[in-house]
């Protein structure tokens, strides 16, 4: 396993005061809180931060950590020294809050066993069964998968308690059914699929939030799908019929004559399925053909003679 430099994670020096550490934690916790932050790795950073603070805020754990941290670099290979024995005792120190689930193997190897007893203490003594934690995760699916529905494999790190009473992360692969027409930001709740309970307590729930992978040309807004459709000037002017891709396959769309660039057309019911289904909103983008040959240039010239036009007239120029 890798050595973790908790001071580096918290951005404080090794001689930082307890007050400095608390302040750094508060500041970074606000920055990386998964409910607040839009940073992609917020969840991971927040967990790492919680772990670092769990150790550094407690003078006893910090002192024990400092003894092994001297001369070690963040990320280097690490095995706990054979004489390592961090004994909590039940009097002082101990685990003083937070959520120890999901801490690293590095943390577990140093403080894992003690955490369990401590954790229970904070909830007002050994009071028997306790429910498991809810788990939240994002799943990334394509728009095609949202349209068609299907099963999606999700790999989750689930904290479990091993035979020695330590909290360890296990990878759990779940095959989750994605219903047709699910929308971005919607959550799927799987009751009892979250963290395990203690002493026979009920398991927590698992919440999976749907995120759409970026698509080459479609973009979803709720159940509506938007698409920018390139068209030629003659298709737009003459109101020709063009082929448009939709999530459900190709459809024919008759453009209104004299369509303009940026004009929006609605293909009713061609968005994500549902009750009612979404629409597909097509925004026209008129592409100017290149005047690549003498003949093409002559044609453009002829157009300017037959259809003189000043598109800047409204600007008074």
């Amino acid at each position, binding site marked *: 396993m890798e050595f973790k430099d908790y001071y580096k994670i918290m951005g404080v020096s090794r001689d930082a005061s307890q007050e400095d550490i608390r302040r750094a934690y*508060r500041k970074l*916790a*606000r920055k990386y*809180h*998964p*409910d*607040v932050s*839009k940073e992609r790795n917020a969840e991971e950073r*927040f967990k790492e931060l*919680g772990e670092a603070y769990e150790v550094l805020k407690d003078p006893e754990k910090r002192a024990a950590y400092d003894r092994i941290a001297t001369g070690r670099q963040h990320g280097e290979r690490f095995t706990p020294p054979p004489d390592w024995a961090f004994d909590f005792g039940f009097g002082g120190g101990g685990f003083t809050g937070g*959520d120890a689930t999901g801490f690293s193997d590095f943390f577990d190897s140093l403080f894992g066993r003690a955490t369990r007893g401590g954790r229970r203490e904070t909830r007002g003594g050994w009071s028997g069964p306790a*429910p498991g934690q*809810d788990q939240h995760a994002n799943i990334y699916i394509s728009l095609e998968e949202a349209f068609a529905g299907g*099963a999606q494999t999700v790999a989750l790190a*689930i904290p479990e308690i091993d035979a020695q009473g330590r909290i*360890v992360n*296990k*990878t*759990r*692969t*779940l*095959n*989750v*059914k994605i*219903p047709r027409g*699910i*929308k971005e930001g*919607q*959550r*799927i*709740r*799987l*009751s009892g*699929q979250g963290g395990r309970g203690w002493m026979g307590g009920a398991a*927590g*729930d*698992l919440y*999976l939030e749907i995120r759409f992978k970026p698509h080459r040309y479609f973009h979803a*807004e709720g159940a509506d799908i938007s698409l920018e459709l390139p068209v030629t000037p003659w298709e737009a002017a003459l109101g020709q019929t063009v082929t448009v891709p939709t999530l459900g396959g190709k459809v024919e769309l008759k453009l209104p004559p004299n369509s303009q660039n940026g004009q929006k057309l609605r293909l009713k019911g061609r968005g994500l399925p549902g009750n009612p289904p979404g629409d597909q909103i097509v925004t026209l983008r008129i592409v100017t053909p290149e005047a690549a040959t003498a003949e093409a240039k002559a044609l453009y010239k002829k157009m300017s003679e037959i259809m003189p036009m000043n598109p800047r007239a409204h600007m008074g120029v």
Partner: protein
Amino acid sequence: MTNKTAVAWTGVVLDETVRFSLVDICEACRIDAESIFEMVNEGIVDPEGSEPMNWRFNTAALRRLQTALHLQRDLGVNLAGAALALDLLEELDALRRRLA
């Protein structure tokens, strides 16, 4: 160590049709009714229905309650602070969507 499961799990999609009673929402948030009352009084959520026994919470309310609880637990904010943060976060989300 990998623990593989081949079964396809079907969850409940929390869409706009889903409603939670007071009992359901307490169970989902793992808090007691008293805490829900406090959060309703703080204006964090506004359930449909007049009497607590008829209250119905939508999925947006569930998310707001859960986020408020996370903010309290992780950042030490009080209820009023959580309510303010939630409103600002929603405004920020709406602005981000307009920019996208």
